[in-house]
């Protein structure tokens, strides 16, 4: 059986994360570190220690905004941003509930919206998100304001070849 470290390294497919020597440059430059449960370099250590439950169940993996500052500055080319993607994907595929449930609900609403019309229709996507998250009333005034300005339209252009788009979703389904 593969260790957690081996699983993560295999998904990243680049430099093995154990090249990290914990200089903490990733954490020092991470704009979301202030809001994270575990700092990025700590996540690497936890993976090495096999702490799968703690890592995949953490809020950190959902708070990463994918700004890619960490991988850009890492002196060892560890692709920490890609690692966060891989951890999120592992968490979803294992059926664990996301610690930051609304972040995942947003992603799901966004992708469901692409499946619907090939392109994002922002008002409909927001309705999809709001129904899923139960967060019905935040940003309502802002949404109405944008609607009045003509920035949001229920009838936005769609992709014609929707079969091609749906095929992509069907064939990439884990």
């Amino acid at each position, binding site marked *: 059986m593969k260790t957690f470290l081996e699983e993560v390294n295999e*998904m990243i*497919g680049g430099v093995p994360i154990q090249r990290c020597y914990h200089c903490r440059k990733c954490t020092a430059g991470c*704009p*979301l570190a*202030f*809001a994270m449960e575990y700092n990025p370099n700590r996540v690497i250590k936890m993976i090495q220690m096999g702490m799968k439950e703690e890592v995949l169940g953490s809020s950190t993996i959902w*708070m990463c*905004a*994918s*700004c*890619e*500052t960490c*991988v*850009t500055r890492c002196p060892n080319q560890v*692709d920490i941003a890609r690692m966060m*993607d*891989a951890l*999120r*994907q592992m968490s*979803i595929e294992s059926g664990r509930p996301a610690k*930051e449930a*609304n*972040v*995942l*609900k*947003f*992603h*799901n609403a*966004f*992708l469901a919206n*692409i499946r619907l019309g*090939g*392109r*994002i*229709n*922002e008002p409909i996507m*927001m309705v999809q*998100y709001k129904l899923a*998250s139960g967060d019905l009333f*935040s*940003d309502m005034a*802002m949404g109405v*304001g*944008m609607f009045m*300005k*003509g*920035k*949001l*339209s229920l009838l*936005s*252009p769609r*992709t014609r*070849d929707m079969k*091609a*788009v749906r*095929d*992509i*979703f069907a*064939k*990439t389904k884990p």
Partner: protein
Amino acid sequence: MKVSYYPGCSLHATGKEYGQSVRAVSKALGIELKEVDDWSCCGATSAHSTNFKLSIALPARDLIAAERDAMDVMVPCAACFNRFKTAQHYLDKDKALRSEIESIVGARYQGGIRVRNPLDIVSNDVGLDTLAGKAVRKLTGLKPVSYYGCLLLRPPEVCEFDDYENPVLMDGILGALGADVRSWSYKTDCCGGSLTISKTGIVVKMVDKLMTMAREAEANCLVTACPVCMANLDMRASEHVRLPVFYFTELMALAMGLEGPEGWFKLHNIDPRPLLAGLGLV
């Protein structure tokens, strides 16, 4: 020159003024745009955060469609630009992945067309001298900070864009239009991206910091090339720190005396017209 054009979803909706101003300045600069046939969404953060293959296959479909026109493809949205460059990066270096993605998309990927942001095309193909010559109304008194954010720049070996810690392309363009571009240290800091919907409080903190630092640099506005940055800065910043935010193409159109800017400015949440009126620019 003629290029393929991928507007992406935002440029028809929340980033409408970016889409319209890109078209207006392209026309005025003699850049003909040929929209990519029947394009679909690049998948953005939501695809790569949840499903790696989906995040490559979605932009691959668009890249393949663009390849049929055999021209560079202009991608104004920083988020789409990043997904296109990332897809190219993986498709070019990983043969096994490439054939898998080709069978998912149902078409062959050739490679070889360049994915380009208008900041690059205006700076390097049009040139700043030509641009300055077209600026009939210099942006005197405007003190912008250039805000590049994340997705045009990082990771640098994928984006192949500008200096990734101190980018200068936008500064050059704004300077050529006569603006007094302020230097600051937050050019490439993150705005919080798509967390704006699900973790709003965190994004407010991040954009407030950007606004505060722009003020410290004595700027009177911020300028961006990304609809996500625009949305976060323009709509999430707290009232006591906020400054007007522009797309760089809006300011190009304003300086070039083109039709449209006043209508675009009305679409902003933070109305930039009082600032511009005070400077005699509208």
